[in-house]
């Protein structure tokens, strides 16, 4: 009797202790193994934050150019504004993939870059007294870069005609007003996102566990999502008609026209840099990235694996191959699609090969779930 009571008590205590020790985000400092915190620290301090700061500089400059143009509406100021728009749009390509934390909460990426722009809604908004750009998801395609692309390049055939639209009815010009509202909104949202990163970077770097909400997990998922959707589908696949007929009007920066290739290359370069852990900026220092982590994890020793290069190098070469195919395209994807869509489809196929590797091999070996679904498995 005594023995039994003792036995069962012990048994249950053991069960409880052991089953409570589920894995959770631990702030473990690393040992001789792979240092995930160094990886997170590199991505946050040398990629995410500098890329956001750079974007903010370009966006602030854009905002001040809007003010200059507002006060003095002439061709020179319009052109300067247009040029700065391109610079800001390029800088944006380096942060779209970080749909994390506050950015995710406010649908930052959707508010900045959903295209094609919804022209009829933009026209309605220009004439409306009060518009809610924050909580109505139907408004996402009437703000951000695609809407401004339309306002700066798409209102009329040439710059003089566009300028004339901004000159009509002087200070009460509704289009100018809407341009101001949109650029203010972009600055406002961006400032809040940067605040988030500044105040949360420590906890983000320290969350080095492997649960579905850990930093590395979120970064990897968001990166793969961006690469598949933001880059592959939106920039190339959808306009080239991979999903159903060709849709040249769906290219990024449709109204500016000849920068769609530039933006796609910028997005692919940003992905490449993130994967490799290459610092943001011109010095191109190669820090810790997913590449290095995969190299640590990927020591599968199948007998015939000599025929394969390592998974991490395989992914890098699929990026490089994608870049080569992108470089073959016309600066303006609209022209490319109409003249020779096969080249667009080839670029899509090359990027697709990278998507396949990221979604199967990389996610499999990283040991993280594709996203936050929750159920048993065996």
């Amino acid at each position, binding site marked *: *009797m005594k023995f*039994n*009571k003792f036995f*069962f008590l012990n*048994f249950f205590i*053991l*069960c409880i202790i*052991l*089953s409570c*020790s*589920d*894995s*959770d*985000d*631990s702030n*473990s400092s*690393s*040992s001789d*193994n*792979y240092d*995930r915190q160094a990886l997170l620290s590199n991505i946050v301090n040398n990629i995410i934050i500098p890329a956001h700061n750079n974007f903010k500089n370009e966006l602030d400059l854009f905002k001040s150019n809007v003010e200059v143009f507002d006060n003095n509406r002439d061709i020179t100021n319009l052109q300067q504004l247009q040029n700065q728009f391109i610079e800001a749009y390029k800088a944006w390509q380096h942060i779209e993939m970080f749909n994390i934390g506050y950015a995710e909460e406010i649908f930052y990426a959707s508010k900045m870059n959903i295209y094609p722009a919804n022209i009829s809604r933009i026209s309605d908004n220009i004439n409306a007294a009060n518009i809610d750009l924050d909580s109505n998801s139907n408004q996402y395609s009437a703000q951000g870069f695609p809407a401004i692309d339309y306002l700066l390049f798409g209102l009329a055939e040439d710059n003089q005609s566009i300028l004339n639209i901004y000159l009509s009815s002087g200070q009460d010009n509704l289009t100018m007003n809407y341009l101001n509202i949109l650029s203010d909104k972009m600055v406002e949202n961006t400032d809040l996102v940067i605040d988030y990163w500044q105040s949360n970077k420590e906890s983000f770097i320290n969350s*080095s*566990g*492997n*649960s579905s909400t850990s930093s590395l997990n979120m970064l990897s998922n968001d990166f793969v999502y961006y690469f598949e959707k933001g880059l592959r589908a939106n920039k190339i696949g959808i306009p080239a008609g*991979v*999903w*159903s*007929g060709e849709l040249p009007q769906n290219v990024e920066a449709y109204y500016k026209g000849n920068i769609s290739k530039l933006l796609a290359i910028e997005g692919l370069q940003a992905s490449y840099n993130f994967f490799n852990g290459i610092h943001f900026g011109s010095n191109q220092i190669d820090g810790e990235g997913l590449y290095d982590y995969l190299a640590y*994890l*990927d020591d*599968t*020793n*199948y007998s*015939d*694996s000599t025929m*394969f290069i390592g*998974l991490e190098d*395989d992914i890098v070469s699929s990026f490089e191959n994608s870049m080569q195919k992108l470089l073959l395209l016309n600066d303006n994807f609209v022209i490319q699609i109409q003249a020779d869509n096969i080249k667009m489809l080839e670029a899509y196929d090359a990027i697709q090969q990278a*998507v*396949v*590797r990221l*979604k*199967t*091999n990389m*996610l*499999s*070996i*990283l*040991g*993280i779930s*594709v*996203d*936050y*679904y*929750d*159920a*048993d*498995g*065996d």
Partner: protein
Amino acid sequence: MKKLISDYLNKDSSPYPLSIYRIGFGILVMITILRFWYNGWIDSLYIVPDFHFSYYGFSWVKPMGIYTYLIFYICFFSALFVMLGYKYKYAIVTLFLSFTYIELMDKTTYLNHYYLVSSISFLMIFLPCNSYFSIDSKSNNKIPKWTIDSLKLLIVLVYLYAGLAKINSDWLINAQPLKIWLKTKYSIPLIGESLLQKEFSYYLFSWGGMLYDISIPFLLLFKRTRVFAFIMVIIFHILTRILFPPIGMFPYIMIFSCIIFFNSSFHKKIIEFFKSFSKEKNNILEDYKSIKGLNKNKISLFFISGFFIFQILVPLRSAFYTGELFWNEQGYRFSWRVMLIEKTGYTTFKIVDKSNGKFIKVNNRDYLTMFQEKQMSFQPDMILEYAHYLGDIYKNKGFKDVSVYAESYVTLNGRPSQQFVDPKIDLYKQKRSFKHIKWIIPFTDEIKSLL
């Protein structure tokens, strides 16, 4: 021979082991249901999705909207009744039917231990688990020894098949998939950053797991090794619970089920232990009589022998299929192949109207949940079922001559991903059957295996 069988069937045993088993099993099923409910899985797995993957021949088993909760309700109360031993026959039949119905509703959630629960509850229909320590039982009866042995046999089969399935080159020679899984379990206290990062530990766990599965049934059967074996059972299953949290209730069901191997005096002590909390002290009677006719009940014996023939043959059915089992997954389920493969897929579909060349690529998330998409992406039968579902949808949308093509890549146990479905094959023309699948591109590597 005939006499031997007859003698064996006539052997009696005290009813304690079955009573304990009935009570514990009822509690575990109740916890399983409550846990399912508590985690919101009834909603997210059965009510939210528009489409459900069904088993061949069981496409009529579907969730019933909000009434799906009713099935779980029924299952919970039948488990409660089983535990109490109240109207046991009806309760255990209801438990088997309701739990199996839940399992059949969507293949996405297939788990070996759910199948184990179904199997045990089916077997228990024919066992007199209510003959003691139950509301049903007015008197104390002896029960046939074979009723207890049949539960033991099922557990033996589970372990043996699980162990034999681990005898393959990926598991033993490459230590896969444990190498992939354990390496990323770095946040487990104590061993995560140390032991689990060491190459030898993947081999230790792989070989240890295989040897454990194969030897534990025998160690449990022999009296001299039984206590040691049971301690091993506890350690092993708790360890799997720590290393693989999503394994759910499985460790508890296995640990509990192994108690059946202890002799009836042990079970008697458990009952005495529980009774020591109540005021009645005199319930354990030593003079019990046999239940008439149960020892050679033809119906029970017929179903139970049929059940075990099924349990022995079904895990072997993979032998009838050519091609790599882990790749084609023909004969993979219902075979106690647990944690053998790390498989991740990426599968998208293109629907073509051959009459005018019009086509569309499908966004899987428009039709499937994240979980369904993940499971579908590497399991051939699910890919085919989903392809037909998509084809039907587009037929209704006005596509005249529908074809469905898949672009699919799969990685298995850390190998580079390989194209999975033949992209030239119109899946809409492929029929669902138990025949060898021809539209999967053969696996390029070789995995040697015993089963």
